[in-house]
């Protein structure tokens, strides 16, 4: 009892849980955003309209090759400070930065969601789409009702990888002042002496978030797999 109190003394006054809660919120919102935008991008890339296919391809190849830090910093300096895009955050910097970070993370992660999903679309036999078209379903109906549901089921594991990467990528949001876990860690490292312990605590925190995600989605993946 005594020993533990002494070892973890330095944690006093830091909102560790609060910081990780921001990490969780960044992850969840960005995951939803990137899932929606990534699905739309995948739809464009397999669609019949050349302009949309071209846009989807260009988007993925540009966005996934730019460092996330650059994208997030651009969101802050370019969108907010230069173009005054506040995303409805009024003049509350904390809210604005948080929303900009979610936007940047979503736009970035969507490229990876799109590619994971596209590989899933490729696992669906062409006969499925042909049968659906032969029934008189439109392109979007075929995609929405037949192709994507089967594609999603086959890419739960790759999407779990994307989600885990996203969780860890939220640390980049510290660069524009979002007070999430990595931001707090930097603060603590500057003020405290227990460097290794601090790193270990944050590493442990992230594992607590990502390990169950991976295990749960691995189970889901088996559960929803389409039998042929």
């Amino acid at each position, binding site marked *: 009892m005594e020993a533990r109190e002494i070892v973890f003394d330095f944690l006093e006054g830091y909102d560790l849980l609060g910081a990780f809660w921001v990490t969780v919120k960044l992850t969840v919102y960005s995951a939803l955003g990137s899932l929606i935008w990534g699905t739309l991008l995948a739809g464009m890339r397999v669609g*019949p309209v050349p302009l949309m296919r071209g846009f989807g391809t260009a988007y993925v190849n540009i966005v996934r090759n730019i460092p996330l830090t650059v994208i997030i910093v651009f969101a802050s300096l370019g969108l907010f400070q230069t173009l005054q895009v506040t995303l409805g955050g009024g003049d509350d910097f904390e809210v604005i930065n948080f929303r900009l970070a979610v936007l940047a993370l979503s736009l970035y992660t969507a490229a990876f969601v799109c590619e994971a999903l596209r590989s899933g679309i490729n696992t669906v*036999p062409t*006969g*499925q789409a*042909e*049968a*659906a*078209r*032969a*029934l*008189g*379903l*439109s*392109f979007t*109906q075929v995609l929405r*009702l*037949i192709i994507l*549901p*089967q594609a999603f*089921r086959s890419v739960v594991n790759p999407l779990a990888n994307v989600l885990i990467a996203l969780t860890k990528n939220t640390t980049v949001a510290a660069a524009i002042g979002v007070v999430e876990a990595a931001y707090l860690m930097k603060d603590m490292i500057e003020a405290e002496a227990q460097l290794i312990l601090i790193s270990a605590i944050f590493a442990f925190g992230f594992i607590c978030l990502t390990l169950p995600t991976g295990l749960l989605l691995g189970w889901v993946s088996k559960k929803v797999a*389409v*039998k*042929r």
Partner: protein
Amino acid sequence: MSGVSVTKAAQDAATTGDDLVVLSDVNKHFGALHVLQDIDLTIARGEVVVVIGPSGSGKSTLCRTINRLETIDSGAITIDGKPLPQEGKELARLRADVGMVFQSFNLFAHKTVLENVMLGQLKVRKADKAAAEEKARSLLDRVGVATQADKYPSQLSGGQQQRVAIARALAMDPKVMLFDEPTSALDPEMINEVLEVMQQLARDGMTMVVVTHEMGFARSAANRVVFMADGKIVEEATPDQFFSNPRSDRAKDFLSKILHH
């Protein structure tokens, strides 16, 4: 027994002279391969046309051009007087009236048998759910798989899957049914259960285009046999004429290879 009603259907078709599917001067290439060459084919309402021929003769491609799963390079295809439109809403509407049964069944793997048969009714015909389910169940009963309604396609035998696929196509109340080698992927003992369903359909007066290697079916259910080789229609005749007295050498050669054992 089935011969009587089939002949009657043929006469009906002949007397009304009502053309449902018309292909005129259709050409298609796969790269350098001229897979359909100047195809002219007219299918009357209520007629059962069986397309036979050696592998690679273009018979599956012909079947697939009728609902535009394969595009054509030149020529024209009309269904019930309407030319096949470009890909889009118009084409989707037309496809809904053309039932298709594939060699590999192509049942939607993530949906139950019942959902497979309901999907087109709900999403294309905008039928109400209870009505769609009732119709689906009665069609499944008609093809003899009513007890499998809540299973997934992978849990069914090939013959059962193909019968579900027929029910799925019938649920759209199609004007014409296309069968693209419906029994070629089946184990021998399952072929008959599918052929029987098709025989029954033919007896009921459904307009059918059947690409098949089942000569027995061609003999008993067809009004007309179309023999294709190397992308051309080589011969068209009634089954009796074709099987007992083929005119072309190509057809004689083909029949001698398949009928003599």
